[in-house]
């Protein structure tokens, strides 16, 4: 079992998506695809699982709204009771309308920021991380597909060539 990987370069996103479908149909394993911009339909073609970021967004939103409710109840009702809009009821429920904007803002704030942080963590983009991009050209105008070569590197190479790859490199992965 060799650890060889074939890096196929494409210069068109439509050709790339078609090639991804072809490679998967032939039973080869695609390790990674590098593109300079998001390509619609590529995740479906690669058979990637749906993102679970939406679920985390919901959880973070619930945390945000709970924090807002707790914070305003503590600040405005318990710690230093405030007369809100001339309605000195000192009750959270009765002054609810004036708290809704803050509840909304903190829900969005928590969901947005924690989602971005989660996305960075999942993409292994923490501080001091070095670029893991195998070819800088994929950040400007070219697309790269990494396919596990297995034992039949020849067959995979010709398959990729037929699918429209403009350049093929065989590299050793460690």
């Amino acid at each position, binding site marked *: 079992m060799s650890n060889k990987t074939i890096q196929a370069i494409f210069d068109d996103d439509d050709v790339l998506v078609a090639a991804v479908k072809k490679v998967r149909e032939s039973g080869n394993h695609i390790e990674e695809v590098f593109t300079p911009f998001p390509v*619609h*339909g590529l995740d*479906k073609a690669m058979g990637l699982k749906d993102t679970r970021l939406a679920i985390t967004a919901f959880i973070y939103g619930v945390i945000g709204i709970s924090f807002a409710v707790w914070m305003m109840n503590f600040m405005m009702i318990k710690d230093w009771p405030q007369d*809100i*809009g001339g*309605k000195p009821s000192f009750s959270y429920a009765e002054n609810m*309308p*004036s708290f*809704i*904007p803050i509840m909304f803002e903190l829900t969005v704030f928590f969901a947005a920021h924690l989602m971005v942080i989660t996305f960075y963590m999942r993409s292994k983009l923490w501080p001091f991380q070095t670029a893991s991009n195998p070819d800088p050209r994929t950040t400007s105008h070219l697309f790269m597909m990494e396919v596990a070569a297995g034992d039949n590197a020849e067959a995979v190479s010709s398959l990729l060539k037929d699918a429209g790859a403009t350049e093929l490199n065989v590299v050793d992965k460690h």
Partner: protein
Amino acid sequence: MYTFSSKLKTFSIALIVLGLLGMAYGFFTVPKNTEEIETILSASSHNSHEAEAAHNEHKVASEHKAESHVSKSEEHQEHLEHVLSQYQNKPWSAFFIAAFFFFMISLLALVFYAIQWAASAGWSIVLFRVMESITAFLLPTSFFLLLFLVLSATNFNHIFVWMGEHAANDPALVEKAPWLNKTGFLFRAFLFVTGWNIFRFFLRKNSIALDTAGEMKYYKRNFNIAVGFLAFFIVTELFFVFDMTMSLDPHWFSQLYPFYVFASMMVSGITVILIVTVYLKSKGYLPNVKQSHIHDLGKFMFGFSIFWAYFFFDQFMLQWYSNQPEESVYWVPRLLGSYQLPFIGMLILNFVLPFLILISSDFKRISSIIVAAGLFIIIGHYIDIFILISPATVGDSWSFGIPELASLLFFFGLFIFVVFSALAKAPLQAKGNPLMKESEHYHYYNL
């Protein structure tokens, strides 16, 4: 080419006839004098005196009371006369609500259509004929709305308080008279409504011409007309809504109000486009309309429902917070008075249910679910318009009975008749638009 089936035509004519009969019944059974009101009031158990104090129209009446120290029987007589005028307003108010609702739906469908042109949107072109046909309803509803306004201005009814003879005794209304007077009111209404109809006429004409001639000049012309219409609309809509519904409560004002009505009717217009599209698709028409297009309309419904809720809450919270008497007068009958149930119910139908149903991408691609959400939105925004108008015109004597239902059925029947006749007049797919291919191939990547 769509053919207006005779079954649907019969159904729509039946609705129109039913509606006419019901409206006639409403107008003929109006109480004529205070004795009849007395029997109605003694038959119903609710205490209208208590709620009466909350009503803004009574402010003038109660000031009178304080000044002249009228006797108990005189006060009772005054109350009976007031309730009588509310009952006499009922069939008019019902007609006005339905006419305004359907007028604004066709107008905002036209706005949505014009936005597609002005933005050179690619995805929606396969839906253009559906949108155009809904805007065909603008002309008949304009006629009925303007007829109503003329009848109001000539004292056939007392829907607009500031048109009545009491206005001269009211300092606030005297102050507002340079704007709120019958001549100016009718002039503005005719100007705005005619202007919108002219824009609609040329948009439709060029769209048909693009079909047959296929020349790019029609495409460019429609782009320019759409931009012009949107600029004209956004200014005139403000004053139109100030005149139509905000002047019903002439002491109360809100700067956000026109945008609130805009949001309310925009989401209704988009929902009507969606429902007609899904209906046509279920009959086997519109083969190029895919689930992706339906999904996109669903996104607009979701977005504008939240947009509406945002304006609703903005308007409410600022006035609730500041707690000014002249502002809370609007909220008392709605939030605490006899309109509480439809008011809260409307919030659930217009915001909570669409939010929970349409937030899911999976639900937006199932036609039955999205149509159910659409029906919630339509019913909710009818109630919304009902609550905008009724507290000022019929006050606590409101009900949803034969006149209200009949007006709704009349305009609904007319809507089906006019819209589906317009659909049958031109091919269901607009041709000649350079972006047509993009619309046919439009695909939401996650679907």
